[in-house]
């Protein structure tokens, strides 16, 4: 088993095929989208491949150390051009192929006009904590 992070972007990923922003959808289309996402997560819990998921607030700030005795420097709110993560799901699957297949299903969530969004999801393997002996 290997863990993968599926990253969903508000901004910064290549444009989706069906790229209408959510506030242009109808309430029913929004409901259908939410239901699809919830069903997907529930199905993965059922197959024993779901680890966790989190949505992130849209606002955020860059913060860094500014030297002894000084308060940290903030650079803030994110600029309009910044890559913006919307949230993530961690899955635990048998193969990279399976991870890609699931990301593809998630990307097929319905959007405007009930058509699949085809959004780009970033798939990142989590580094294992274990030392694997190779000799």
């Amino acid at each position, binding site marked *: 088993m290997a863990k993968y992070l599926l990253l969903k972007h508000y901004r910064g990923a290549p444009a989706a095929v069906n790229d209408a922003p*959510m506030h242009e959808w109808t309430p029913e289309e929004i409901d259908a989208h939410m239901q699809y996402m919830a069903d997907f997560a529930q199905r993965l819990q059922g197959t024993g491949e779901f680890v966790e998921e989190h949505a992130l607030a849209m606002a955020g700030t860059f913060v860094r150390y500014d030297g002894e005795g000084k308060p940290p420097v903030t650079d803030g709110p994110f600029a309009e051009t910044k890559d913006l993560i919307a949230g993530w799901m961690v899955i635990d699957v048998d193969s990279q192929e399976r991870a890609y297949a699931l990301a593809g299903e998630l990307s097929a969530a319905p959007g405007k006009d009930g058509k699949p969004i085809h959004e780009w999801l970033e798939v990142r393997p989590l580094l294992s904590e274990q030392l694997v002996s190779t000799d």
Partner: protein
Amino acid sequence: MDADRLRDLIPQVIAVVVRRGADFASAEDAVQDALVQLLRTDDEPRDPKGWLVTVAWRKFLDATRSESARQARELRVHTEPPPGQAVDVDDTLPLYFLCAHPSLTPASAVALTLRAVGGLTTKQIAEAYLVPESTMAQRISRAKRTIGDHRLDEPGDVGVVLRVLYLVFNEGYSGDVDLAAEAIRLTRRLAAQPSLAGEPEVRGLLALMLLHHARRAARTTAAGALVPLAEQDRTRWDTALIAEGVVVLRGALSQGRPGEYQAQAAIAALHADAQTADETDWPQIVEWYDELAAHTDSPVVRLNRAVAIGEADGPDAGLAALAEVDEATPRRTAAAAYLTEKAGDRRTAARLYAEAAAAATSVAERDHLTKQAARLRHRAD
């Protein structure tokens, strides 16, 4: 065995072990260990409280003996009382005070209260707050170190206890522990303490919890989407809980010493009293918000008051009241969107809803506000 009944025993068992000579921190640890052991066995002891006292005391002695020899010598002065039925006094109140000690952070007080007064295991508390069990264990032991120098019989601050219980209540539900129900259970026990009969705010908080809890089934759809108060199916409100909440509130108000929890409970009771949203007595709700503001003048109270004024005196009056509320108040934009729509400006309301969705603090709230914006855009065009 019945988990609630078992959990009710925990603070009493801790008190017995403390009376026998253990310090609070060690007693609490020993009782937690005994509780976890009891939860793992299938057969219920005939006298669970006596069993817990015996096992916890033994665990306490073992733990202490494994520490330094000096402590062991000191301990020999405590001879173990004969086993048998523990005295049945409810000395839970000092534990409420200690676990909600003003020196603790809210998160620490909540965790310690749930464990020592609520009788939950560390694992259950960790699940309820979605943190690793080791994190919660550390939070609890740090909390115990913080109050290490305080004795169980010190007088406490009931106001702090109520704040802690209200925090637990508002955390809602995750994992297999229903924190709202747990908060109600703990507040019920507190309200039953004879020495607090003269504290109407205790019963005010209990009433507030009961009246809010009564609406829970109607508050979300099966899929977890928010249902605003005006759109809730009122037949799904729990009438028994509402009736109890109203009785408890009347008893509190009759003491003639109103406070913030009684005022909030009165507002909840007025909502519960309306058969339909249109029958809501908004002018009286505004009056209670004024009362509430006299006790706790927070931006959140002013925000809710502005919305109530919008219902009582029309959206323009509501927007005028909202203009007085600090810009940074959470949900202010959502309230502005709601009142702006009532005032007839759908286009601006849609923009405000979208703005509010971007600032939402929960998934359910974000989705709800996004859909409000979508609804208006599709009707405005």
